[in-house]
């Protein structure tokens, strides 16, 4: 009897695992093994044509320290700096915009479904090469924006895309432009906040600003936090837009050399695949640390309701 029950439990487990098999195979063959392999490659010199050569920590050494024999890779540090700037300017701006527009819409407006659609269109299209190409033309020296600025306002604007001072900001603008998803999420979140909270607090004499900080922000904090983490992770990996807008080179003067663009150029342009693997692991660690940090900070800032 006991044996029979155990046999049944084993059969039950096996048949469940049958459903999981494709994913498990994918995880081991296409995720875990490649991860370990790239960790190994990060300690080697490897150009895909010859077998990898063990060089210890040199790839990492060149990235951050460097000496006379192996000078530090300043382009790497620059790409890291550019990417951080992009992430820490574009993600907060995007979320602020998304929240502001969501709050504007959080009233009894008849046209909300229409507005939601309208504001989602940039997000729908923004990841495409087509829009990146358009951006390049909009902000070029003789582009559309400058034609308007010259014609209507008689200004003498710079060539945004080819000026190292401004090129990154055109990409930040492109990213902020796509605030549709967080906006829709925030709007759904705002609708969940009970009206009574606001009514009670206005009876107590709280103004709009006070209500925003005392009710709206704390109620939305889990959603804001989740969006912050997810947007950050994807912003660190941005590639297409920088590639197209800069013509694949991260220029002018490396001012749009995103981390993943430099990784691509190193790995597939210069065939330094060991170095590119090391870069991938540095990115993994950066994202892991920032995510952990975000979770830790959120412990004190994010309120998950009264825990019913």
């Amino acid at each position, binding site marked *: 009897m006991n044996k029979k029950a155990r046999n049944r439990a084993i059969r039950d*487990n096996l*048949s*469940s695992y049958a*459903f*999981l098999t*494709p*994913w498990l195979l*994918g*995880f081991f063959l*296409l*995720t875990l*093994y*490649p*991860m370990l*392999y*790239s960790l190994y490659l990060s300690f080697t010199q490897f150009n*895909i044509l010859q077998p990898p050569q063990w060089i210890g920590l040199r790839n990492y050494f060149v990235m951050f320290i460097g000496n006379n024999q192996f000078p530090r890779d300043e382009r790497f540090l620059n790409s890291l700096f550019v990417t951080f700037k992009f992430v820490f300017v574009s993600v907060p701006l995007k979320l602020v915009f998304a929240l502001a527009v969501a709050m504007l*819409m959080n*009233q009894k*407006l008849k046209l909300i479904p229409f507005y939601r*659609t*309208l504001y989602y*269109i*940039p997000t*729908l*299209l923004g*990841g495409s*090469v*087509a*829009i990146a190409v358009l*951006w390049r033309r*909009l902000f070029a020296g003789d*582009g*559309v924006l400058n034609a308007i600025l010259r*014609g209507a306002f008689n200004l003498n604007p710079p060539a945004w895309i080819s000026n190292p001072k401004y090129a990154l900001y055109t990409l930040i603008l492109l990213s902020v*432009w796509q605030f549709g*998803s967080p906006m829709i*999420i925030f709007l*759904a979140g705002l609708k969940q906040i009970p009206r009574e909270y606001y009514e009670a607090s206005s009876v107590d004499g709280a103004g709009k600003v006070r209500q925003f900080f005392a009710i709206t922000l704390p109620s939305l904090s889990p*959603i804001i936090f989740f*969006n912050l983490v*997810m*947007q950050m*992770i*994807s912003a660190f*990996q941005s*590639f*297409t837009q920088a590639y197209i807008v800069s*013509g694949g080179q991260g220029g002018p003067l490396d001012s749009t050399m995103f981390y*993943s663009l430099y*990784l*691509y150029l190193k*790995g*597939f342009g210069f065939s330094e*695949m060991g170095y590119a693997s090391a870069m*991938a*692991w540095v*990115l*993994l660690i950066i994202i892991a640390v920032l*995510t952990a940090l975000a979770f830790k900070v959120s412990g004190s800032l994010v309120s998950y309701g009264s825990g019913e």
Partner: protein
Amino acid sequence: MKNRTARRISAGISNFIIIVLGVGMLYPVVWLIMASFKESNTIFSDPALIPKAFTLQNYARGWKGIGIVGFGVFFKNSFIICGLSVIANVIFCSLTAYAFARLRFVGKHFWFAVMMMTLMLPTHVTTIPRYVIFRSLGWIDTFLPLVVPKFFATDAFFIFLLVQFIRSLPKELDESALIDGCGKFGIYIRIVMPLTMPALITTVLFTFLWTWDDFFNQLLYLNSPAKYTVPMGLRLFVDSSGMSSWGPMFAMSVLSLVPCFVLFFSLQKYFVQGITTTGMKG
């Protein structure tokens, strides 16, 4: 009474701001569409939004592409890759999600945590080894590296979406089917799959969109123009940019956005649903 007027005024102001901002946001897209119908040499000299003379010449020239391969081929390639990816994700992500959401087995919590961790993993850690593996299999310059991983449910995002959805379904139906002698697979096909339809449609939509725009992997694996996808075709225009190719490039850009528009407008409510149930990434 006073309160109602105040509310009406506030709604009026909000409507106004939302519309003005919305028009500003969509201006670039509208400009692109209009520019694609202008005569190539007037695109930048003619400041008016509405073209003086509508012309389809840009579309005709753009469709021919650059060199020997035209956009017909690029569209066909993109549709093949997207179609296969959609089929694979619908079948294999939902199978996996069903296991996580409904079945009981040893190590379930562990594997679920692992799956959630792969959701946050930057793709770059697997990029180079995967390239090495696919190269040794002779898969470079084929669609296989773009499509085959999807048959192993590597898009954790959709597993997560479907798990969330299946968990919200009532369990009683499965239980009664179990009593009627339905096996696990029978329950999956006859009960869970049909009820999961809204989330599966969301999966179809976003798989299509993200695969359509997956420029990085296409750039990595496709080398010959005959294998190029639509984004790769557009890039050809960028590389050979001269004044005369702006018109055709804009025309093909507009065309490349049409499938996304069609999907979005025909299945809007599934978009909103998908975004709100998962808190969507980008």
